[in-house]
């Protein structure tokens, strides 16, 4: 009689989304879209853990990191021959169309430089990925984005929907993803961001 055995290993647990790493791809197309003049990028992989999730829930009430958002994630430091152009981080947000992955370009002082939909199964992404709406986000810090969201009503403010000229769900997904991205980037990579300037001061052009 054969047995179906699942041994229990009392080993440390590293939070990972149950998917093999051979499927990981750098968001090269998104980096090219956000920083067209880039020449290179450097990955910094850090762990987004339960503690991060707790802080996100506290700072952004009603918003939780879903289980695919925990684990090891990458911040890309994008450079050209003169130094650092910006940072790129991809975060996903749940929606009625499944997970929406948005790549965010972020300046070293944690302002939005731009965004691009990496994976989105809604055609409305073409309505949002336009210069007019990019301009609404560009240059904004977390506090400015938070002012577009009514946390008690768990919905974007009318100011936000009027400003972007779109009332569909994807606009809310975009705003929530932007807020979570800025907060998570600050919480998880703050030490790296602090040292980026000094480490790339010694940057030698190709």
């Amino acid at each position: 009689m054969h047995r179906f055995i699942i041994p229990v290993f009392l080993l440390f647990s590293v939070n990972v989304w149950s998917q093999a790493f051979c499927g990981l791809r750098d968001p090269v197309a998104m980096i090219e879209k956000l920083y067209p003049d880039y020449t290179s990028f450097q990955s910094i992989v850090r762990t987004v853990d339960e503690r991060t999730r707790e802080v996100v829930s506290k700072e952004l009430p009603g918003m939780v990191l879903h289980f695919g958002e925990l684990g090891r994630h990458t911040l890309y430091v994008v450079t050209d021959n003169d130094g650092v152009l910006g940072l790129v981080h991809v975060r996903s947000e749940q929606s009625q169309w499944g997970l929406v992955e948005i790549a965010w370009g972020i300046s070293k002082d944690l302002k939005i430089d731009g965004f691009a939909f990496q994976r989105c199964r809604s055609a409305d992404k073409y309505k949002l990925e336009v210069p007019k709406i990019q301009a609404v986000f560009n240059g904004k810090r977390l506090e400015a984005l938070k002012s577009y969201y009514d946390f008690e009503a768990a919905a974007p403010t009318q100011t936000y929907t009027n400003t972007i000229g779109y009332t569909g769900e994807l606009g809310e997904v975009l705003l929530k993803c932007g807020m979570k991205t800025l907060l998570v980037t600050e919480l998880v990579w703050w030490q790296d961001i602090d040292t980026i300037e000094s480490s790339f001061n010694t940057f030698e052009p190709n």
Partner: protein
Amino acid sequence: MLALYTHRLLIPVGISLISVMSYAEDTSSRQSFDLSSRMVYSDVDDSLGFMHAFGIDYHKVVSNAQGDIGTLTAQLYVTRIDNLFPHPPFFDDKHDTELVTRIFNFNYTGLGKNLPNIKVGHIELPFGSEYRINTNGTLLQYTHPMNLGPKADWGVSINKQNASIDYEVSLTTGGGQSFRPDDASSYVLTGYIGTSSHHDFHYGFSFNQSKINQVERENYAVDVAYYEGLWGFSAEWLLGEKNDVNYQQSFTEINWRSPDEKQLYYLQLRLQRQFSDWSRQDLMLGTRYHFHRDLVLSAMLTYQEVQNTVQLSAQLRWRF
């Protein structure tokens, strides 16, 4: 003998990898243990077979002062089969234990933005729909083993992904799990070029020419995929030749995911004609459920009309 040599080399490499994992948490790496148990019921002989695998999955980005210059991916598994038939050819019989290399390569990306990357090691062959989708260790499979022989092979490739195009061309030994096949004249040449796979609609072209232990193959394929909301559709059309026998094959899949993507359901249809007869009319119906962040339960029913067989598979996988 070569397989044994391969395994003797890989065991210390695997142990070395595990030993550096404890230091790797703060560097640009990811690592996970991967444990799975699979049960396969076949109505041919009313038998139940099992496959258990335990291994490490390691991924590290290597950088220098100018930026990232490459990625190391290593997936080494101790795999045990019991009463499993048919089984992958690198198992000696239906009760066997092998050290299996799924993926083990270094992809050098340091040639810059416009020049290709160079990958060396055990490479997943770039061909058809399967090239776009991660099927390593999952019940969900596409057409690699049937079309190409090995799913992954030892060799080199050039590859690149940019805003509009993905491509990869590989030249490998044909040994599959072994560095070298039994017949030293074996080789596998495979290539893929297609539009970027992050688009809702993408397509690609593939070719494959190989000689593995006196079996000669030549395949040309076109694949497309389209996603709308929670639905996905993919198709692959192939013209092939195996030892001078021509065949045509189509492979289609329709799938649905739940909004949180914890559940996946799929239906696949594979049709193959040799001469003017159907040589395959296979229907696969499957599901995958992430019932915990690290635990995945999968099940699949395979019905082969021409062979008149039914196979039922189930798998529990834990990555930690």
